């Protein structure tokens, strides 16, 4: 595809359930980033991948959040035992490499936890 894609576009879940969010980066981009955007807040960095490894997990809000990337391509962000405060738009971005910080963003997944 021409750009970063994310699925689902919207997800409504009940408190306590687990959710998986998917990101397909631009082909050939080695760096992949996850952000969270809450209403009225700036983009909050969560985690980034260089290839399949995640050198910096410092932004993950709690141990309920995890992410993986396989084959240097698709990434999934998993939130276990969701809480209402997890409700936000989760954005994924990719760049050619970590030192090339021209990041291209996907459309986001809007997560609503009831």
């Amino acid at each position, binding site marked *: 595809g021409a750009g970063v894609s994310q699925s689902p576009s919207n997800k409504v879940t009940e408190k306590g359930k687990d959710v998986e969010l998917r990101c397909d980066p631009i082909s050939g981009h080695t760096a992949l980033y996850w952000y969270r955007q809450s209403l009225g807040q700036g983009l909050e960095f969560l985690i980034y991948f260089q290839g399949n490894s995640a050198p910096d997990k410092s932004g993950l809000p709690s141990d309920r959040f995890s992410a993986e990337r396989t084959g240097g391509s698709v990434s999934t962000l998993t939130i276990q035992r969701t809480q209402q405060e997890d409700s936000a738009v989760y954005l994924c971005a990719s760049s050619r490499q970590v030192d090339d910080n021209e990041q*291209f963003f996907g459309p986001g997944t809007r997560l609503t936890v009831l």
Partner: protein
Amino acid sequence: EDQVTQSPEALRLQEGESSSLNCSYTVSGLRGLFWYRQDPGKGPEFLFTLYSAGEEKEKERLKATLTKKESFLHITAPKPEDSATYLCAGWGGATNKLIFGTGTLLAVQP
């Protein structure tokens, strides 16, 4: 603490009324200053990267400038289609990550 602050939070302009958006930053070891545009329901769209004080970049009605403490996004003779949220981000600092401001919501009325 590394921080990026944008002002104003919201700006309403008449079509053709030029103005500037401000992004002030305290990011140690700044490697770049980024501007993005975000439309409702979409991800941010890259506009500019500025790497050093004094640098300027232009794209259509937009011009971005950078000093050692702040960046400006100048909008000349805006059109309604320029309405969006404009995000500024600093790259560098202790964590070598993009640090985003909360954005300026621009509304251009015909």
